[in-house]
């Protein structure tokens, strides 16, 4: 990763949600949705964020855009400190970072026409005059492969795939540098999913976008991402380039996750590592390594929190087992 420009950088980011106390003087409890995550997103890349439900991947993405106020930590976007920005500055900076949500049925206002939906971000960011906005809206609808006559319609008149196209057009309205895609294809059918994935890739090449791509579907992530971060219970457990992660996963959780994906090709199938038990509740995570309760290799050592370490070539792992192996060799 030499000389790549860092677009978004977070350091020791934490997002703790307070839980209602049962008694007035009971100790304060928190759900540690994101706990001490440091991450860099390079310009022009697609960074994948994977993990099972409740691992904090959506919270992390939203906190990174300051859609949620972080509990502590630092966020730097394009060299500017996002946390120091006042409401007015933040609004100006939001132009450059947009988000596409999972559910194309819930994220579009049902009583607004597509034209209004696409125009809204332009009005907020004070983009050109009425005429300029109309031209931009037509440009956008063409960009995502829909027709100008669709602008007059309401969201309910579209299929799921088309709606997701509209949501993407809306995100692109203000020409952002960074687009966060929060499970953009999870609600879509197989044949439509490939259309949207291709569209996202085309747009990236055409406009030079940076994506932060959240998904629980590893085959989708493998297809579209350059680097992948794996999360478990609010912690980042592994971060590596795509080829490195899929060919040489180091963390036991990543290994189990990869082996759990159903494959069509029987030659590709690996011996399955079935994890026992469920994900612990994030309100009461295990001490030390969050994964040790389900890990095959867990020892006494795992009761202490492992540091996330670079094991070479930008491959980061948080596991005692891995670093111990290194020492032994």
């Amino acid at each position, binding site marked *: 990763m030499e000389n790549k420009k860092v677009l978004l950088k977070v350091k020791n980011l934490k997002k703790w949600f307070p839980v209602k106390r049962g008694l007035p003087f009971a100790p304060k409890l928190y759900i540690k949705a994101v706990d001490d995550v440091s991450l860099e997103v390079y310009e022009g890349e697609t960074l994948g964020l994977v993990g*099972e*439900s409740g691992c904090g991947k959506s919270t992390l993405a939203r906190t990174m855009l300051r859609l949620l106020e972080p509990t502590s930590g630092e966020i730097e976007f394009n060299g500017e400190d996002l946390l120091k920005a006042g409401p007015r500055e933040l609004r100006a900076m939001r132009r450059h970072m947009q988000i596409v949500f999972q559910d194309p049925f819930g994220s579009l206002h049902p009583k607004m026409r597509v034209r209004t939906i696409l125009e809204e971000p332009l009005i907020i960011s004070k983009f050109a005059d009425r005429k300029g906005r109309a031209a931009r809206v037509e440009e956008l609808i063409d960009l995502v492969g829909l027709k100008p006559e669709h602008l007059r319609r309401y969201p309910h008149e579209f*299929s799921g*795939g*088309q709606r997701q196209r509209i949501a993407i057009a809306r995100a692109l309205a203000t020409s952002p540098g960074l687009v966060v895609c929060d499970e953009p294809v999870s609600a879509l*059918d*197989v*044949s*439509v*999913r*490939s*259309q949207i*994935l*291709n569209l996202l*890739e085309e747009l990236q090449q055409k406009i030079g976008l940076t994506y932060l791509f959240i998904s*629980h579907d*590893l*085959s*989708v992530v*493998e*297809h*579209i991402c350059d680097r992948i971060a794996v999360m478990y219970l609010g912690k980042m457990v592994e971060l590596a380039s795509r080829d490195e992660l*899929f060919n040489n996963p180091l963390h036991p959780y990543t290994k*189990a*996750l990869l*082996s*759990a*994906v*159903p*494959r*069509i*090709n*029987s030659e*590709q*199938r690996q011996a*399955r590592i*079935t*994890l026992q*038990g*469920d*994900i612990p509740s994030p309100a009461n995570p295990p001490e030390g390594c969050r994964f040790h309760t389900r890990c095959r290799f867990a020892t006494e050592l795992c009761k202490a929190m492992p540091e996330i370490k670079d094991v070479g070539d930008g491959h980061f792992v948080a596991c005692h087992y891995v670093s111990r192996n290194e020492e032994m060799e």
Partner: protein
Amino acid sequence: MSENLLSVKDLTVEFKNFGETTRIINGISFGIEKGESVGIVGESGCGKSITALSIMRLISSPQGCVNGSIKLGGRELLTLSEKEMRSVRGQDISMIFQEPMTSLNPVMTIGKQLGEVFRFHQNLSPAQAHKRAIEALRMVNIALPEQRVNEYPHQLSGGMRQRVMIAMALSCRPKLLIADEPTTALDVTIQAQILELMAKLREELGTSVMLITHDLGVVSEVCSRAVILYCGQVMEEAHVGPLFREPLHPYTQGLLKSLPSIGRREKLYVIRGTVPSPRDFPSGCVFHPRCERATERCREAVPELKALEGGRRVRCWLY
């Protein structure tokens, strides 16, 4: 070839809405052998769940109209009275649904819900039913079944709820288990646990499984045969190996090519267009507007479901 446990013949399902009749399922036929596991695959709206509900006779008339023949072990299900059907459900066929939270009763303990099956089908006393419920939970590997049996569904995780559903479905040793997207709401590592459990129980109990899913990966791992549905018709039917090695129907080919698969990173294949609404299914072959190899003939005439060697069937003019 052994006797079919379930045979569905020319099943059609129509729904009436404001005087307008919409045909959702158009002449589906397939069979499931004893101890076999068959996948029913298709995108949303292709009629997979309606097929399952018709087999369970859960489509309410008069809005829904089911025609054709559904035979379970030689017995016609469509002509049974409601009372006879009630003893078939749970006893001979049972079903698990996609969302384990909404299919369990939130105000009843797990034990009560499980016990109900035993009390209804086997006339056991409440105490005996409670005991059997604990055994059933143990069968699906739930830790501390004596404790869990008195808990409510909201106290369990998604994977555990699905285990309870499986325990309930298999508690009377049914001949056929219909699983409607049993793992879609679950995470991959939990999905792997549940699929493993289902495969183990299928072997132990000799139950036939009809697995409804849109995930081709799950089918190729769990099922021995697969039926591909599109717009209420069977497009292709084959054993899993040949089906994924060399799919015949252009729709199956398109589906397989459009999957992002690990270790391959070219541009994804796209099936153009979208699934048509049941109210305006196209004429001729239902897939022709989206098919790359469609000809004049495909637009005009509906192809037959042709039987090929090796128990394969395909509905396409190309073969």
